[in-house]
């Protein structure tokens, strides 16, 4: 649940200046709406498609806005309040816009003992973010700490958007960032 100090999702990503007032264009139209309906058939009811629908929303818009939640609620015959309750439980749905590249560094004990803190430091310095959860001025990067990524033997694993990178050390950070223009 996203109430901790290193939550990857909404709560700790600090709201930027941009994003909130952009009018919401519906996501579930045409092909996307059809894809959602096909997906719903896997389950005995529409509500079970909530997590997948939120993923579709985030993939389309980069984050999960209040207006997006209203749209998802309508699609699945749920209330917006219910959908928000679910969104806020999970760490991976962004409740604010984030940088173009969202960087998550594992710092749980197995990675911690292999030097994960220094990897975090290197990312904060070299992206210009300076602080966890803050998007860099050029809008390119947001860096957060994340709990165990399930790849502890490959310390330190780092996620950049949906890319899963293994065995990152402080001196590999520059090379990693160069891949994300």
């Amino acid at each position: 649940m996203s109430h901790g100090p290193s939550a990857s999702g909404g709560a700790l990503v600090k709201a930027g200046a941009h994003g909130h007032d952009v009018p919401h264009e519906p996501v579930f139209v045409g092909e996307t709406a059809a894809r959602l309906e096909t997906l719903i058939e896997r389950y005995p009811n529409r509500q079970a498609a909530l997590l997948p629908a939120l993923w579709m929303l985030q993939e389309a818009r980069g984050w999960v806005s209040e207006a997006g939640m209203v749209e998802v609620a309508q699609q699945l015959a749920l209330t917006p309040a219910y959908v928000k309750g679910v969104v806020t439980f999970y760490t991976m749905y962004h409740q604010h816009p984030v940088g173009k590249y969202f960087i998550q560094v594992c710092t749980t004990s197995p990675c911690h003992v292999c030097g994960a803190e220094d990897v975090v430091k290197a990312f904060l310095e070299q992206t210009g973010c300076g602080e966890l959860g803050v998007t860099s001025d050029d809008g390119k990067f947001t860096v957060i700490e994340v709990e165990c990524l399930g790849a502890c033997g490959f310390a330190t694993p780092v996620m950049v958007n949906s890319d899963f990178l293994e065995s990152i050390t402080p001196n590999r950070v520059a090379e990693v960032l160069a891949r994300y223009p």
Partner: protein
Amino acid sequence: MGYPHQPHPRENTVLSRYFGDAEARSVDGWKSRGGYKALQSALQMDPLAVVNVVKDSGLRGRGGAGFPTGLKWSFMKLGDGKPHYLCCNADESEPGTFKDREIMRWTPHALVEGVAIGAYAIGAETAYIYIRGEFTEPLAIMEQAVADARAAGIIGKNAMGSGKTIDVWVHKGAGAYICGEETALMNSLEGKRGNPRIKPPFPAVSGLFGMPTTINNVETLAAVPHILNHGAEWYKKLSRPDNPKSTGTKLWSVCGNVQRPGNYEVEMGFPFGEFLHDLCGGALPGRKLKAVIPGGSSVPIITIAEAEAGVMDYEGMVACGTMLGSAGCIVFDDAQSMPRQIARLARFYAHESCAQCTQCREGTAWTTKILERMVAGDGTMEDFDTLLSIADNMTGKTICVLSDSCAVPVVSGIQRFRHEFEALIKRTTIHVVPQVIA
């Protein structure tokens, strides 16, 4: 285990034989390696006969609790007229554990096959594989494998020509350790917050969508085809002769301060000392191993001396003061401060508590606060009693065992490394080598 290292001669690679072999990822590649024979023969057996083979094999759950798999399957009442479900738990988030990820990345069809056999055995027409959202690569590979298996007629409306429906779907999680707890996973799959449910009712009575449900770990299900192919007797022999309660091979994920972290597959009953020093290569140059958490962060921390005398099976781990858990082995060397590491683990649990139970919500938060204050050098001798009393209040009193899991490293850590905490309080220097970063 083959990936990222070559298998050690002392390993027995049943599940991990094709790790690193990308050709094993396709339907044809899997079939040419002996895949889907077990499903074919299972579909010709009575479901109860399948359950009985698994029961006889002694296979126990690899997700953490070690519950006998065949017995769990036998709780499903066949022919009760209700839809049955199988959930495959691929939420793998227990710190130290990364074996299911490798099974899914390299041998996705081993899992599809195991899931299909499990579904058939418990009378389920639908199975969901719930994979944590961060596992982007395993998710893509499993989605592909399921689609390919469906296109090949292996699963779907007429699975392998049997006339049976076995639908398998991949469901993507969204970031929450607690969704690995079985009833939280079911809530999450239903489109709810991932809060664990009060038991009873147990999933076999009322599980996913309120229907009879079985939930099994990835590794548990991936072992099933091998058991059907080679027989229960073969599986039972993969153990130490004096302990029939732990059978088969086991994948151990090893991480932390060792020369060769990675996954290793050994038979139940393997000597832990040899495992740590030979297979994993022992300590880094100039360092000494100090402590081990053998079964994922939720089991007691033991000293290296206790570990070296240990035997790697469910009972052997209990005998050396800990548990097998999820077999995620975290190794600490003499450069690590145990209070600091225990504080970090407590922070993990505080972050992951779903906050339904007061003991857990408050207990994990206060434990973290006190430990972090001690690590910062502001501890007092009274903190020990406070921590142990909080731990006592967190144990055996909550809806799920996440709360207990937070108390475990605290209690076992204070028991074995009290001197390190005291040194922090008295501000005396102890031998903690400064950490060298590669």
